[in-house]
C-alpha cells in the first residue's frame, strides 16, 4: 500500500528560482524511508511539501499524493484535515519548535481542542497517554510545565508526542536528532522506532547523516541540488553507490569502524610534551541557583607532533578546557604548561601577549562568527603577520599571506573576499590560515568542522592532515563526533561533566573501551555497517 507518492514535483520561488527539479519519491505503509542530502539539497522543502507547508507564493507542479489525495490542489480546509489526522511532522529543533510562552499541555492538546473540538478533559487524557508513549517520566506533571523547564531531549519527545496525538498514518521527521547529543539521539530514535511499529505508520526520515539513515531505514533516497540523485536499499547505497556524488558522499562520511587508515601513534619512545595540563578545575558560580562545575581535575599531555582528540557531549567541559588552554579563561586551580612554560594569569605586556600567541592558536566552531565581518580573507591573515613580524615589509606580508591561504586551498582571488561572500568551508580555511600565520607550537580546534557539510568537512580535514604532515603540527582536536576524531587523532580522551573518564589511543578506545560511559557513547553512534 503506497502511503506517499511524490512524482515530478517542482518548486519555483516567486522570483523564478527553481529549488526542486522533479522529485519522485514514495513511502509505503509501515515502511521507513530516509531522505539524505547536504544543506541546500532541497530535502526539507520536499518534506514540507507533504504537509502543504511551502513558502508563500511559490509555484508547484507535479503531484504529492498522501493516501491518494493530491496535496498541492487541496483546499485550505482539506489541508487542515490532512495535517490533523493523516500526516504529521517532527522538526529539528524542539527548543524553537514549541511555543516558549505556553505550557506543554497546551502544546499537546490545542490541535485536538481547537481543531477537532474535543473537550478539555478528553484532550488532556490523550495528551497524558501520548507523553507516556514517548516515555516521559511524569506525564501529568509535564502538562503544567513550560518548555524552558525541560531538556532538549525531553522536548523532542514532547514534539513527537504532539505529532502523534492525531494518530497520523505518515510521520515526517525533519532532522529530529541533529540538535541533540549522540546518547540522547539514540533514545529518541528508539522512541520513533517503537511508535512506528506500534502504529504501523509510514515514516519519512530526513537527515544529513548517511550512517543514521542506513541504520534506521530500509530504503534511502539521496538528494542533491533539488534532485533525487539516487534511490535504493540502505545496503545498496552503501556498498554499491551508483552515482559519483553518492560515492563521494559515502567516502566523505566518517565512521567509527577501524579501517586501518587512521593515524598511528608514533613509534618514537620519548618525545617532548608540548602541552601539559595539570589538575585543571573551574566552577561557574550560579546566579540564584546551583553553581556549575565545568572542569574537575583535568590532567592531560600532548607530545610534539601528536594529535589528541577530546570527545564529549554538551556540558562535558571540553570547550571550557579549550578556552583555558588558549588563555581566554582562567582556571580556579591547576596549571597549563606549554613548551615547559607555565602560564600565570592574564598577559600584561605586549611581549608577553605575543609570546603566548606563538605558543597556542585556536580555530573556533562557528565559521560565520569567527571572522571579522569587515576584514577580507587576506587582511585577516595579514593582521596576524603584521603583529608578529613588525620587521616585515608590506609586499612581504602580502606574499606570505597569499602563500598561507594557498596552503589551506584558497585561491589568491579569494584573498580579496569578505567573509560574507565565502562559504562555511572557505571561512574555516581562512581561520586555519590565520592561526598558522603565527606558527604556534600548538593548534586547538574546537568543533572546527561540526558546522560543515560532510563533503566540506572531509576537505577541511584533508587540509589539516596535509598541514600536519608538512609542518609536524601539534593538535588538540575537540569534537562531539567519535568518527571524525578517529580520522584525525592518534590519541583521545573522553570527557563527561568536567572530568576525563578515559584516555587511550583512539583505536583502543573504539575497539576496547574501558569505561561504561565510553561504551555507551560508542554504542549510541548509528552504524551503517550493522545493517549492511
Amino acid at each position, binding site marked *: 500500500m503506497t502511503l506517499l507518492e511524490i512524482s515530478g514535483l517542482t518548486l519555483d520561488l516567486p522570483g523564478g528560482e527553481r529549488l526542486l527539479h522533479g522529485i519522485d519519491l514514495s513511502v509505503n505503509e509501515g515502511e521507513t524511508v530516509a531522505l539524505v542530502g547536504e544543506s541546500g539539497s532541497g530535502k526539507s522543502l520536499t518534506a514540507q511539501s507533504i504537509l502543504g507547508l511551502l513558502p508563500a507564493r511559490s509555484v508547484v507542479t507535479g503531484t504529492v499524493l498522501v493516501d491518494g489525495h493530491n496535496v498541492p490542489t487541496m483546499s485550505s480546509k482539506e489541508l487542515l484535515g490532512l495535517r490533523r489526522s493523516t500526516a504529521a511532522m517532527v522538526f529539528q529543533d524542539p527548543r524553537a519548535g514549541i511555543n516558549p510562552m505556553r505550557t506543554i499541555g497546551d502544546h499537546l492538546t490545542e490541535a485536538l481542542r481547537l481543531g477537532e473540538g474535543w473537550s478539555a478533559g478528553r484532550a488532556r487524557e490523550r495528551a497524558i497517554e501520548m507523553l507516556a508513549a514517548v516515555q516521559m517520566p511524569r506525564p501529568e506533571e509535564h502538562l503544567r510545565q513550560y518548555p524552558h523547564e525541560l531538556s532538549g531531549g525531553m522536548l523532542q519527545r514532547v514534539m513527537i508526542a504532539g505529532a502523534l496525538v492525531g494518530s497520523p498514518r505518515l510521520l515526517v521527521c525533519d532532522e529530529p536528532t541533529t540538535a541533540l547529543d549522540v546518547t540522547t539521539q539514540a533514545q529518541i530514535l528508539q522512541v520513533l522506532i517503537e511508535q512506528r511499529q506500534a502504529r504501523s505508520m509510514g515514516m519519512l526520515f530526513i537527515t544529513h547523516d548517511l550512517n543514521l539513515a542506513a541504520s534506521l531505514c530500509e530504503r534511502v533516497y539521496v538528494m542533491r541540488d533539488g534532485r533525487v540523485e539516487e534511490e535504493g536499499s540502505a545496503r545498496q547505497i552503501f556498498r554499491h553507490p551508483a552515482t559519483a556524488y553518492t560515492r563521494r558522499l559515502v567516502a566523505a562520511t566518517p565512521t567509527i569502524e577501524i579501517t586501518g587508515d587512521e593515524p598511528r601513534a608514533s613509534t618514537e619512545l620519548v618525545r617532548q610534551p608540548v602541552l601539559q595540563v595539570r589538575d585543571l578545575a573551574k566552577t561557574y558560580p550560579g546566579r540564584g541557583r546551583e553553581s556549575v562545575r565545568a572542569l574537575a581535575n583535568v590532567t592531560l599531555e600532548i607530545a610534539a607532533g601528536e594529535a589528541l582528540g577530546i570527545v564529549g557531549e554538551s556540558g562535558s567541559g571540553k570547550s571550557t578546557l579549550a578556552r583555558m588552554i588558549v588563555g*581566554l579563561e582562567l582556571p580556579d586551580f591547576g596549571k597549563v604548561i606549554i613548551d615547559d612554560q607555565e602560564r600565570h594569569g592574564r598577559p600584561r605586556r605586549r611581549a608577553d*601577549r605575543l609570546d603566548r*600567541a606563538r605558543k597556542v592558536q585556536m580555530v573556533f566552531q*562557528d565559521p560565520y562568527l569567527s571572522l571579522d565581518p569587515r576584514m577580507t580573507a587576506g587582511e585577516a591573515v595579514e593582521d596576524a603577520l603584521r*603583529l608578529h613580524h613588525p620587521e616585515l615589509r608590506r609586499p612581504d606580508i602580502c606574499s606570505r599571506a597569499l602563500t598561507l591561504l594557498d596552503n589551506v586551498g584558497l585561491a589568491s582571488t579569494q584573498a580579496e573576499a569578505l567573509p560574507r561572500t565565502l562559504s562555511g568551508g572557505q571561512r574555516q580555511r581562512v*581561520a586555519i590560515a*590565520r592561526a598558522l600565520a603565527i606558527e604556534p607550537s600548538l593548534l586547538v580546534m574546537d568543533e572546527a568542522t561540526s558546522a560543515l557539510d560532510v563533503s566540506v568537512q572531509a576537505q577541511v580535514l584533508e587540509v589539516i592532515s596535509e598541514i600536519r604532515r608538512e609542518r609536524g603540527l601539534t593538535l588538540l582536536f575537540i569534537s562531539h563526533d567519535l568518527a571524525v576524531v578517529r580520522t584525525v587523532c592518534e590519541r583521545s580522551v573522553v570527557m563527561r561533566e568536567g572530568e576525563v573518564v578515559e584516555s587511550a589511543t583512539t583505536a583502543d578506545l573504539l575497539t576496547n573501551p574501558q569505561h561504561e560511559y565510553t561504551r555507551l557513547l560508542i554504542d549510541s553512534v548509528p552504524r551503517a555497517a550493522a545493517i549492511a
Partner: protein
Amino acid sequence: MSRPTPTLAIKVLRSSRRRRVNASWMISIIVLAAITLAAIFAPLVAPYDPDHIDFTAIYANPGWAHWLGADALGRDTLSRMIYGARTALLAPLVVVIASTFLGVVLGLVAGWRGGWLDAVIGRLLDVLLAFPALLIAIMAVALFGKGLVAPVIAMSIAYAPFVARLTRSLVASERARPYVAAYRVQGFAGGWIALRRVLPNVAPTVGAQSTLNFGYVLAELAGLSFLGLGVQAPTADWGAMINESQAGIVGGYFLPAIIPAVAVVIVVVAVNVIGEEVSDRIGGGTPT
C-alpha cells in the same frame, strides 16, 4: 531582562528595511543640501532683511514681492525662513555630534569592560533616560535663562544615553563573538581590538541612530522655541516664527505659522530617509 532600551526603538524605526525607490533618497539629499546652502549663504540668497518691518505688507499673500507671503509685521516669510534655517540646522548638528561622542565613549567603555563599570554606567544611563530630552531642555532654561545655549548642552546630555545604550549593547554582543576571541588569542591588545576592530563594526548602526536623532532634536528644539523658551523673538527661527504667528491662525492667517511648521516636517522626513538609506547601504553586512 528587557528594560526599556532605546535600542528597541531604533530597531523599530529601522525595521522597515526594504529597498526604497531611490527617488525619495535623491530628493531628500537635494532638499537638505538646498536648505543647508541657503542657510550658509543667507545674506546672498534672502530677498529681504529678515527683520525688516513693512507695514504695507502685513499678512501679504504669496506673490512676486513676497514669494511665501509676509507676517503680522509685514516681514518677508521666505527671508525669515532662510535665516531661521541657520539655528534650526546648526543647533541639532551640535547636539548630535556632542551626544554621539559622549554616548559612544560611555557605551564603548561599558560594553567592552563589563563588570562593575558597566553596572555603574548602566545605572547612570537609567537615571538619565528617565528625563525626556525636552524636559531636560526646559529645566536648563529654568536654571540658566532663555536662549539656545543651555538647551543645546542639556539636549546633548539627554541624547547621549540613547547612543550609549545602543553602543553598549552592540559592543557587548560583538565582544562575545569568536572573532574577538580570535584577535585576543592572536595576541592583539584589548584596547586595539575595541577601537580598531569592534568600533568600526558597530559604527554604521550607531551612525544611523545619530542621524535619526537629528530629526528628533530639530523638532524638539523648534518645539522649545515654539514655547517661547528657546530662540527669542524677533530673531528669525522656525520655532519662534510659529510662536509669533500662532495668534494669527485664529484670525485665519495660516501661512506665517504653517510654512515653518511644514519646513520642520520636511527636514525631519528628509533626514530620516537619508538615515535609513545610509544604514541600509553601509550596514548591509553588519552583524547585529
